[in-house]
């Protein structure tokens, strides 16, 4: 039975919506610029400090982690894009027009999530590769020379950088679905990324060690890590466990968001 517009039509419609609004387009550009620009800036800064580092510090340095440093900032941009994709519909009440055209809420949410993921994944991967090559150029000939992409771990690290941004975008989208308002969703997202680490920092160090590794940005660093260590030396999960946990967070907020979307009046 052909009930409701097909998923493909809704995806095409959501793509038109994504690219025809300034906020999402600018957000995507900001994410691209932050990943590349700040990655380069951090690489240059670290290179300048290589000489003054202790041998232990120098031995554990992960040049790829440094080259990808811009992602720590870009993750805020993707969260905002993700939230806005849905909250702007609620704040403008255009959600009513949208749902009148696409009554299947699951299909609408799926189409939005697919368009959002595709855009962030493509732009995020391109930015990650550019950031990698910038870092490789900066660290060329130093003690922290960048391993080549031919090494599986290096390639994995770059690819997962783009995936991390995508998952964080979906996380912001899920919060937007639940909270339905831009300010609430964006401040919750930034609080989770910024304030929780500060609160955790106030806890006893044994607690810190068991909690920190669950924080999204630490999971992201673990996803990018090629040597199983992150800066600061706190314990982390393996790359794939970290990826799975972050994906689990996304699945949790998205499921909650979809259930609420099905139940609530528009």
């Amino acid at each position, binding site marked *: 039975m052909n009930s*409701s517009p097909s998923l493909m*039509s809704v995806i095409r*419609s959501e793509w038109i919506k994504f690219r025809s609004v*300034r906020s999402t387009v600018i957000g995507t550009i900001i994410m691209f610029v932050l990943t590349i620009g700040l990655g380069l800036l951090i690489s240059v800064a670290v290179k300048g400090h290589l000489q003054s580092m202790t041998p232990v510090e120098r031995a554990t340095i992960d040049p790829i982690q440094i080259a990808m440093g811009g992602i720590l900032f870009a993750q805020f941009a993707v969260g905002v894009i993700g939230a806005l994709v849905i909250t702007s519909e609620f704040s*403008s*009440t255009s959600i*009513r027009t949208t*749902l009148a055209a696409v*009554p299947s809420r699951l299909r609408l949410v799926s189409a939005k999530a697919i368009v959002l993921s595709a855009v962030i994944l493509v732009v995020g991967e391109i930015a990650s590769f550019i950031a990698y090559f910038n870092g490789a150029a900066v660290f060329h000939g130093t003690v922290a020379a960048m391993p080549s992409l031919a090494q599986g771990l290096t390639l994995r690290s770059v690819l997962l950088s783009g995936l991390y941004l995508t998952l964080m975008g979906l996380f912001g989208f899920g919060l937007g679905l639940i909270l339905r308002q831009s300010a609430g969703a964006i401040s919750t997202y930034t609080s989770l990324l910024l304030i929780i680490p500060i609160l955790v920092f106030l806890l006893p160090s044994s607690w810190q060690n068991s909690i920190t590794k669950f924080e999204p940005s630490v999971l992201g660093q673990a996803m990018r890590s090629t040597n199983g260590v992150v800066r600061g030396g706190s314990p982390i999960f393996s790359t794939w466990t970290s990826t799975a946990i972050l994906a689990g967070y996304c699945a949790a907020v998205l499921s909650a968001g979809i259930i609420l979307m099905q139940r609530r*009046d528009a």
Partner: protein
Amino acid sequence: MISVEHLTKKFDDTTAVDDLSFEVKPGVITGFLGPNGSGKSTTMRLILGLDRPTKGRALINGKPYHSLGAPLKEVGALLDAKAVHPGRSARNHLLALAVSNNIPTSRVDEVLNFVGIESVAKKRAGDFSLGMSQRLGIAGALLGDPPVLLFDEPVNGLDPEGIKWIREFFRQLADEGRTVLVSSHLMSEMAVTADQIIVIGRGKFITSGSVDDLTKNAAGTVILRSANNTKLNQILLEAKAAVSEINDEGLRVSGLSAAAIGDLAFGAGVAVHELTPERASLEEVFMELTQDSVEYSQHAKDAK
């Protein structure tokens, strides 16, 4: 055809729509009339599946809204002219809607031309005046060339020229055999726009019928001027009519027909100078019908 069957919507402590049942037939303009807050918009949202009914259902040509294959090709709705992302251009807004329902994109320019906003199609919808937004909303409703159309308070924000335009437009839609449901809280508007009227108050069905039916059945009044109003007043009151004085020495009588009043005056030997039956206007009928169901009635007046 729209069928509403025992539709009920309760919010936390209020019942916005209360066991409402009615049918909207094709080929005529049906006015959906009720005071502000009587549940007109909620009913329309329920018809479109935007809100979930507490009880009952609404069907479009026998099917619930969410099971329509391409809803925009079957139902066009203008609920809130401002329900558009303010940062998106009018054209892109319509384009996204068209694509979602597999409507040819050429149709976007057609409807933009039809409502006369093609010159501002590339401007941000957020910068539109209410009148322009209404036209954009109408363009969206027409996009799929649907046989069923719903408009919630479409006249709001339109200038007199726009109002004239929209009335002719509704007439044209109905003449083409479409089902047209137009809500309003203004009787005067419905009296000139609609063929059939459904009246609700506090979410409940009050009455329905043609404009003629509604005014015919309502008690009219008779204006009476005579050589001896005082005497007639007495006689009329004895005949259980309600009488009130009006300026320039006339009487407004209700509860008796003009013929009965004339006979009484003749019997009393008072010369009648004027005897004019006044048909109740739709406005008066509406006031009478919804008197008990106005959301914010004047309690202060009753307390006096």
